[in-house]
């Protein structure tokens, strides 16, 4: 598995399509931001078997990136890869909602 990591959102030819690219939009150091990171990582670790890349975007520091994925609120979780793009806004504590919202099926 190549370890190359880029922040490009455009899938390139030859990219491992079974690998999920998730983007979590948060706001700084708020309790909700920390909670969202933990919840997303927990779901990914349990259900994606390490086959994922997570980008966490603090929209205070990177506001321009919020525009790309048409973010209207935080926290928002976006599944960039594999297509199609999916969004889940707000509470990420319900594992089943996250799995359904991100089209994640068990990968074992």
């Amino acid at each position, binding site marked *: 598995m190549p370890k190359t990591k880029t922040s490009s959102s455009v899938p390139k030819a030859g990219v491992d399509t079974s690998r999920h690219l998730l983007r979590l939009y948060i706001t700084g150091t*708020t309790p909700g931001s*920390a909670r969202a990171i933990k919840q997303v990582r927990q779901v990914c670790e349990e259900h994606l078997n390490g086959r994922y890349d997570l*980008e966490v975007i603090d929209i205070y520091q990177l506001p321009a990136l919020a525009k790309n994925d048409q973010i209207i609120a935080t926290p928002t979780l976006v599944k960039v890869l594999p297509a199609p793009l999916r969004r889940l806004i*707000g509470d990420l504590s319900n594992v089943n909602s996250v799995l359904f919202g991100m089209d994640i099926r068990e990968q074992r």
Partner: protein
Amino acid sequence: MDDNTVKTLRDRIDELERELAESRQALEAIRSGDVESLVVEGPAGPRIYSLEWSIYSFRVLVEAISEGTLTMGEDGIVLYCNSAFAKMLLAPLERVMGNPLRRWISERSQPVVDALLRRAITGEGRIEIALLNTGGREVPAYLSASSIHDNGERVFCLVATDLTELRPTEGES
């Protein structure tokens, strides 16, 4: 209608239903108070309306400072870092946040960092370590740590000072 047309239409309906569900979910999340901020497009770029109480001046201070600052959960995942820290690692900010800090610490510095974190549970501490940047090159740095309790969970607060300019020849051969 032939089978292909029916299938195409069914797929389109499925996709539209998904999109509708997504929009409803977004509105419901906003209405029920599950979101922390709203992002509104303005002529000068996006404006962020925070719905949570926050200390604006502290946030600006942390973002602007030349030291690398970060918070980390007990599981070693970076919950927040400023752009100065990402710059020390030559990494995109979004790839540092939400991921393990360990990846950015040289192997020989791991034990001292672990010891620093243990010490930070009861007090504070500062050590000299070698960070590891995206290119695999070591970056000498001071690392200070303290810890707080945030909503019942321990959060480590770390400050990294880049020593590269003070030791320009160290680590080069």
